[in-house]
């Protein structure tokens, strides 16, 4: 801090300062552990070509020590930029993103010393694993921005996965499965809406119970119908990836973003629509007002509970569509509890992304990347056990909600049932 400045920092500024200190210490950690400590470097081979995209560079070989050092220095530079922007009272999102990317690359150079890393494949897999997280996090945004906590994302995903798989199999029509999935998610969301909004039950308890209800129901029917009559009930198949002309030929980006199944393209649309609608449309303004200050919203004639009810249903539909990715997008058939806690990671992404659509997408992508990297490093062998890599998203979320990476605040009225005429149950 400069000597001229004697003004005390406000609470958000203090948090931001703490965030910068956290980043600086992580950067220093990377510099020492990934860059300086290894005695000798080993070559890391990054390969970039996956399919028939245009070739810019087939592969790049980096010395692990040099790469780790170089990326750590960049991450520290990013911290420097963030500090300057903090002093100038500007936001430093780009610098934070640069920090995150270079820190990860520094880690990757260290962890993959002497190994072969299919870089484009790593990114493609990361997006693949992020898809349900992004759908789930969008469901969280829609519902929680209007003031209803959605812990039932997991159940909505699972219901979508189950129904889409079963319907696609029974009708032998994948599109039919895809169409049904949002309704399955919305059905669970309807229960959430009725009990939370009409009866004013604690939304966290409720979401939890609904998750178990769906896990129980789908597990029951899976064993009773899907296993014995697999050929009729559980053989829906998967959508083939669609390559978008020209775009899919761009090196690295093409195979990652534009050679995916229809569900992924629907996800792009959903994210853009939700982001624009939430911040630019009348519906978005109402949604946010109902989530932040329902009494004020009602005083200008907005029906608080109607908006909430509708948003929760839309949220369920979005999560249900994301559920279809498990069956129609990835595996081709349903299996018991196949969502495996992804709904809770989506919740973590929502919180990590501070309840904003794009923030949640970024968080989901990071979690997906960590998950995929973990899988890759387990196969190639790593200096750290894979279980600790798997823990990373959860620990990151705890750090985030504890306020070490800036301000994390839920919509003010999130989770508080509203009774007409102001006040809560």
């Amino acid at each position, binding site marked *: 801090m400069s000597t001229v400045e004697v003004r005390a920092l406000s609470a958000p500024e203090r948090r931001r300062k703490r965030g910068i200190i956290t980043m600086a210490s992580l950067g220093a950690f990377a510099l020492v552990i990934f860059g300086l400590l290894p005695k000798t470097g080993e070559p890391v081979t990054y390969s970039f070509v996956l399919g028939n995209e245009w070739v810019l560079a087939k592969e790049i070989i980096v010395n692990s020590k040099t790469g780790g050092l170089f990326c750590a220095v960049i991450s520290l530079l990013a911290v420097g930029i963030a500090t300057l922007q903090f002093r100038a009272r500007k936001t430093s999102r780009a610098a934070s993103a640069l920090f995150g990317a270079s820190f990860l690359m520094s880690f990757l150079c260290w962890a993959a010393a002497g190994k072969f890393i299919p870089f484009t494949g790593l990114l493609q897999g990361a997006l693949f694993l992020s898809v349900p997280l992004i759908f789930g996090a969008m469901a969280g945004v829609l519902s929680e921005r209007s003031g209803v*906590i959605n*812990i039932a994302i997991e159940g909505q995903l699972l219901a979508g996965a189950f129904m889409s798989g079963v319907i696609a199999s029974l009708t032998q029509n994948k599109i039919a499965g895809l169409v049904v999935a949002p309704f399955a998610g919305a059905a669970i969301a309807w229960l959430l809406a009725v*009990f*939370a909004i009409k*009866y*004013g*039950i*604690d*939304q*966290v*308890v*409720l979401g*939890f*119970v*609904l998750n*178990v*209800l769906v*896990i*129980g*129901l789908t*597990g*029951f*029917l*899976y*064993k*009773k*119908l899907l296993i*014995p009559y697999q050929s009729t009930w559980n053989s829906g198949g998967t959508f083939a990836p669609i390559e978008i002309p020209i775009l899919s030929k761009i090196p690295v980006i093409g195979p990652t973003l534009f050679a995916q199944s229809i569900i992924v393209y629907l996800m792009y649309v959903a994210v853009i629509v939700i982001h624009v609608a939430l911040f630019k449309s009348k519906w978005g303004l109402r949604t946010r007002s109902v989530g932040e200050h329902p009494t004020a919203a009602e005083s200008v004639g907005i029906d608080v509970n109607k908006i909430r009810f509708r948003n929760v249903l839309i949220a369920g539909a979005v999560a249900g569509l994301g559920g279809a990715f498990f069956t129609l997008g990835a595996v081709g058939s349903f299996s018991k509890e196949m969502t495996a*806690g992804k709904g*809770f990671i989506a*919740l*973590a992404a929502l*919180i990590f992304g501070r309840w904003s659509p794009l923030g949640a997408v970024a968080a989901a992508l990071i979690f997906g990347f960590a998950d995929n990297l973990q899988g890759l490093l387990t196969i190639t062998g790593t200096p750290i*056990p894979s*279980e*600790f890599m*798997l*823990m990373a998203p*959860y*620990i990151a*979320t*705890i750090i985030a*909600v*504890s*306020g070490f990476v800036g301000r994390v*605040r*839920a919509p*003010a*009225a*999130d*989770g*508080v*049932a509203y009774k007409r005429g102001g006040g*809560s*149950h």
Partner: protein
Amino acid sequence: MKLKKLILPALSFAMALFVGGLLVALSDSKVLALKSQPLSMIGKGFSTAAGAYWALFRGSIFDPQLAEGHFFQGFYPLSETLVAASPLILTGLSVALAFRAGLFNIGAQGQFIAGAIGASWIGFTFELPIVIHAVAAIVVAMLFAGLYGGFVGFLKARTGAHEVIVTIMLNYVAGYFLLWLLSTTAFLRPGRQDPLAPDVRESAQLPHLFGPDLRANLGFIIALIAAAAIWWLLSRSTWGFRFRAVGANAAASRTAGISVARVTTSVMFIAGALAGLGGAVQILGSEPAMTSGVGGSFGFDAITVALLGRATPIGTVFAALLFGALRAGGLTMQASTETPLDLVLVIQALVVLFIAAPALIKSLFRLKNVDEGTTVASKGWNG
């Protein structure tokens, strides 16, 4: 205890059994085959559901077949119910205690795992005299889990991090940590590849209550003692008064001079220790070899138990016995009638759903003047 208070839970349970029965009947291929004859379809459906529930009863309370040779043996299923109920009582108490202080402990799962790790570690690593060994294992289990839970309370008190989010995340952390631990030489059973710890030594195992044939063990008595202790803590001690005061109105308690931060941290410590005791009872009582799946679904079961028991110690004991019976009976039901164990989850979820929405049950049965008891108030992330 007024009888009126039992109406709502009883009706909720009946409704859940009814819906569960419908599910059993309507998913049965033999029932579905009779689509053209509605009357015989209803009859077949009824007998299918009744068969499943009869198996559930035989697996949880009394089995006439087992009683033929030796009447006492007929109660083998009841002993299994007690075995299943013991950890449920303890994890349920953990959630119930936190509820009373206005905290929602979703982390019983992780705390249970922390306790199981502690008990298992002491149990198979050290050679100690008979009583001391079990006590040491229990104390270490409670300490591990207490710290794991207390950390959540500490974070909430210091930084305002919501306990629901932190506990959900810590459950996963505990699960992965256990998985890693079971791959290390210290915890992996010699000669095994799959995640399995060595058996706890006999000196640390809890003695059986009714002879070697029945698995019911001292863990059940420990759970009852814990319930009594929590009852005393909540309704007879100054600390318990503070807990309840903070739960009822944190702002007023702060004004009255109660340190909310200290209450939050200590409640979560005790809640964690209770769940950890549950893990210890599971390991020392019935499952001497820890696996990566030791946590089971205890986290969720604990929440349903606490909600059904209205967050009171006595209620929790009875709710845990009920769900313990469903667990134990569910296994028999699955084995003898091909009704998947998942039905138990459905029934459990429905019971809690109905309990949590007294207005729904009241309108379904057109009841008036029924005691709704304390339901958990909706508070939100920032509360």
